[in-house]
């Protein structure tokens, strides 16, 4: 089986979007996961719920929110317009949609991982004079990294598969914003089953590979002695 050029382009675009979305999620997910795990503040669980919302909300609702926010006349989109930045119908909009949808997976994984780190070990490091950020980097993160990584890989897989919200804010421009999942949709709509079959197999294989990797890295699969 050989990949035709358009499938290659869609695959590469999907990978690019998923990589960027995952990187953003990792950055914010670790920061907010740590905050939720370690700090006590009013509205903590409310914040957790709000950040988890994208995972359970219908993609159409999310897509609409994003369209209203980052569209040309949207609250953020309108403001960006004056700097000549236009997000809607660009691959960056696909990154935003994928990042928002997949974010809870990193957040949940990171929060659970940080909560499982023994606070006494962090205290010991502080007593020994390690500055707070150093404790985080040299004690907390190394102990929590499996959980963080597991969530991150799931987020990557979810980003690869993102469809609904992406279609609404990034459109379906072949070569520019037409990711694998959207290319599948277009092929089925047009009745091009052969092309759809090929794209479906490619998507399934990539997602399987990511999930197998994620499973291997999940803590309970590899209990530490």
């Amino acid at each position, binding site marked *: 089986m050989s990949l035709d050029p358009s499938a290659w382009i869609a695959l590469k675009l999907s990978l690019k979007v998923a990589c960027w979305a995952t990187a953003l999620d990792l950055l914010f997910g670790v920061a907010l996961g740590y905050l939720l795990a370690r700090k006590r503040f009013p509205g903590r669980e409310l914040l957790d719920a709000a950040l988890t919302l994208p995972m359970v909300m219908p993609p159409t609702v999310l897509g609409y929110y994003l*369209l209203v926010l980052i*569209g*040309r*006349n949207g609250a953020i989109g309108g403001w960006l317009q004056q700097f000549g930045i236009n997000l*809607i*119908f660009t691959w960056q909009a696909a990154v935003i949609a994928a990042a928002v949808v997949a974010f809870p997976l990193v957040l949940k994984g990171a929060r659970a991982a940080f909560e499982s780190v023994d606070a006494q070990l962090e205290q010991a490091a502080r007593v020994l004079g390690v500055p707070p950020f150093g404790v985080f980097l040299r004690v907390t993160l190394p102990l929590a990294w499996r959980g963080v990584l597991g969530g991150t890989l799931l987020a990557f897989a979810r980003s690869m598969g993102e469809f609904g919200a992406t*279609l609404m804010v990034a*459109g*379906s*421009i*072949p070569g520019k914003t037409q990711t694998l999942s959207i290319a599948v*949709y*277009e092929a*089925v*709509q*047009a*009745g*091009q089953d052969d092309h759809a079959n090929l794209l479906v197999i490619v998507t399934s294989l990539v997602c399987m590979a990511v999930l197998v990797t994620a499973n291997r890295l999940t803590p309970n699969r590899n209990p530490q002695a």
Partner: protein
Amino acid sequence: MLKAAVAMALASLGATASAAEITVSAAASLTNAFKEIGAAFEKEHAGNKVLFNFAASDPLAQQIVKGAPVDVFASADQDAMDKADKLNLLAPGSRKNFASNSLVLIAPQHGRVAVTSLADVAQANVARITVGNPASVPVGRYTRAALEHAKLWAAVEPKLILGASVRQCLDYVSRGEVDAGFVYATDAAIVKDKVSVVATVPTGTAVTYPIAVIAAGPQAALGRRFADYVQSPAGQAILARYGFGKP
């Protein structure tokens, strides 16, 4: 089996003997007019219900080809209907043209770029133009043919934002997310306050809508009556009110 049959009979008590539900798959551009026709049909055929499935014509044809339990299919061009016709899925003799429409170029009312003629779509400052995907949406095919004829397609193609149906394109223009778009005159009329019609675009083949009864539909007989109703003076009057022309 018997119990189930009795239960079903009991459940349908209160409705008339011929009470049934038909499913009508119709092109997205027919949404408003067909909803009204459906309501009028239900009034005349008390107890019966019309369920609508609106989308771009090609996906609707695909669903029928794949065996969806649809009774009536109304598409926005002949190509989409041909897909079902070629596989002998239409009730013989039931395929009729029942309405016509025209293709228009529209722009957001307070757009960033002034679009004043069809030729403007080739200008560099008109950066984004939305149209239905020609592979699956009839309005996209009409547009491509018209622009190819006008020698504008090559200039427009790189700027295209492909919509999944004509109504999605209409939404993109109403929201001002694109600079211009191609829809039917009847679509533009729905959001007069948000979009302005720049020009009527001459199409090579006339925009005509065929309707047909699906042979394998679960309620083919009632489906036939609905198809007839659409073509009756009452149905045609409703279509005319939404701006559709005679076939």
